[in-house]
């Protein structure tokens, strides 16, 4: 299974929403699609789901051009684009059945899809009365109901409370175990770090980076750690340790250490701290690799 963009371009007047995108997502994995507002994330997903027409280039799914061979291309693809509206007079069961029928799906499990998103008890209520979060859950159930091998999810946890977000992340993690490809756009870097295997970054319609999270973590690993101890820490003693560049006291029991490059050095400092009798209860890199990569590649800019 794969999705491929070949010189994919979308232009509105003189504005490029997406410019010459060339990328191939392949295999059972979760790919986080990141970028600021207006970067071209949703445009890409809409081009792959026949909601937009490309100005030039091709969106290809499993070898089929989405524009030319729509039925074959989207046959085994579940989608969630923005927060869709639903026919308000239908119930979740009717909506999902409608989708199964339209998709002419062999593998259709309405009950399981509704249970996965915690909406089974609402199965016979009319959707028109649902809150935004509930509609989002139904939208995710709609993406899952035919058990597709590829899932295209546009900010799937939008509009959900923290519990709902955690539940949906778990659903996505479970889907990964079932050997599916998930392309998921998100603003939430911790979410992508937690759920995805690879990350693609886009800004101003151009792809900036496509890398595995592991490689990215290696590349953008920080050279500072935050240490939390049960007892008071004497930062002067730590300053004298080999490889330590600076120490910042954050509180009596918490310090931030900047050190010379390398994972080996990070480990040696931890060993020394324990040898010095400091009761370390937390020792973690300051800031996420993904966040650093994001800020370095994109900065704090938005395109709105």
């Amino acid at each position: 299974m794969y999705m491929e963009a070949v010189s994919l371009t979308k232009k509105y007047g003189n504005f490029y929403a997406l410019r010459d995108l060339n990328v191939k997502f392949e295999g059972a994995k979760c790919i986080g699609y990141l970028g600021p507002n207006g970067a071209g994330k949703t445009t890409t997903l809409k081009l792959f789901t026949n909601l937009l027409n490309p100005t030039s280039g091709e969106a290809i799914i499993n070898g089929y051009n989405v524009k030319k061979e729509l039925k074959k291309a989207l046959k085994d693809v579940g989608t969630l684009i923005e927060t869709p509206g639903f026919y308000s007079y239908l119930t979740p069961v009717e909506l999902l059945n409608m989708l199964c029928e339209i998709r002419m799906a062999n593998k259709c499990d309405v009950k399981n899809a509704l249970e996965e998103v915690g909406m089974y008890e609402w199965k016979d209520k009319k959707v028109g009365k649902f809150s935004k979060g509930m509609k989002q859950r139904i939208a995710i159930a709609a993406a899952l109901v035919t058990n597709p091998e590829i899932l295209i999810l546009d900010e799937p946890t939008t509009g959900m409370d923290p519990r709902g977000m955690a539940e949906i992340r778990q659903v996505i993690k479970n889907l990964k175990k079932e050997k599916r490809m998930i392309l998921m756009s998100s603003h939430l870097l911790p979410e992508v770090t937690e759920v995805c295997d690879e990350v693609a970054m886009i800004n101003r319609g151009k792809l900036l980076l496509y890398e595995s999270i592991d490689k990215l973590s290696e590349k953008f690993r920080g050279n500072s750690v935050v240490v939390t101890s049960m007892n008071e820490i004497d930062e002067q003693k730590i300053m004298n340790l080999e490889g330590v560049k600076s120490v910042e006291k954050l509180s009596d029991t918490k310090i931030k250490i900047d050190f010379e490059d390398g994972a080996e050095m990070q480990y040696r400092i931890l060993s020394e701290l324990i040898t010095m009798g400091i009761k370390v209860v937390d020792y973690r890199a300051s800031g996420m690799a993904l966040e650093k990569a994001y800020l370095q590649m994109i900065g704090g800019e938005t395109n709105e």
Partner: protein
Amino acid sequence: MSDLKQMWIMTKYQFKNYMRAKRLYILLLITSLVIALIVSVNVYFGNPSEEDIKSTASSFANFSEILVVLTALFFGGDAIAGEYQNKTGYFLLPNPIRRYVIYWGKYLASLLASLIVLLFYLISGMLYTFYFHGTIPSEYLYSMLYSFVFLVSLLAFTYLFSTFFKNGAVALTIVAILYFFVFNIIDGVSQIASVEPWFSITYASGIITLVFQGSYMGDYPHSQVIHAGKGLTITAYNPYLWEGVAIMLGYFVISAIIGTLIFQRKEMK
């Protein structure tokens, strides 16, 4: 084959939505009130059993033109625009289903709902005529047929406008203005300019009632010059029966082609 099956599925769910939204019942209720009004007025102020049978039958046919417009607006006005306005397009469109299948599946549901209302009305008219005269004139059956052709074409025309806009209310209002004002103005100006308005659907739909005129079907003047004083003459045109049908079918074919092509390319931005 699978396209036809998907079209039927679209029709089924769109029709279900009409039922649940009570649109169909509301229009049936309005139609019942109109029937009650026509019967009451005719019986109270006249004597249907003593009047000409064609006159009795045409009293029902007169309103069927308006009823067709109402049903087309009720069931077609927001059928496509609503997908964009209510964002249901995000649910429906990213699926392995061709756009034309969605378009025509919805159209068939609208046609079916409209037909139920129209047949309810026209069959009531048949029963009314039969009650007072013991028979139904063949002109009434032709008028029914022309009403059906008008419905098919006006609904396609309404769907065309529904693809132009992303707001159902706007689409609906534009079609209503077009039908009730713009086409009537065009018909009026054409009469003054002595140009036959062969391009107007309201002109064509006139055959629904014209069929009752004269001693046999089609027995009416195609044009009549009327002197309106001070050198002003206007020409009143009546479409031939075949001409009316041809114009309406023309509207259907052109609206169907353009509407389908637009929806095929329309983006969900």
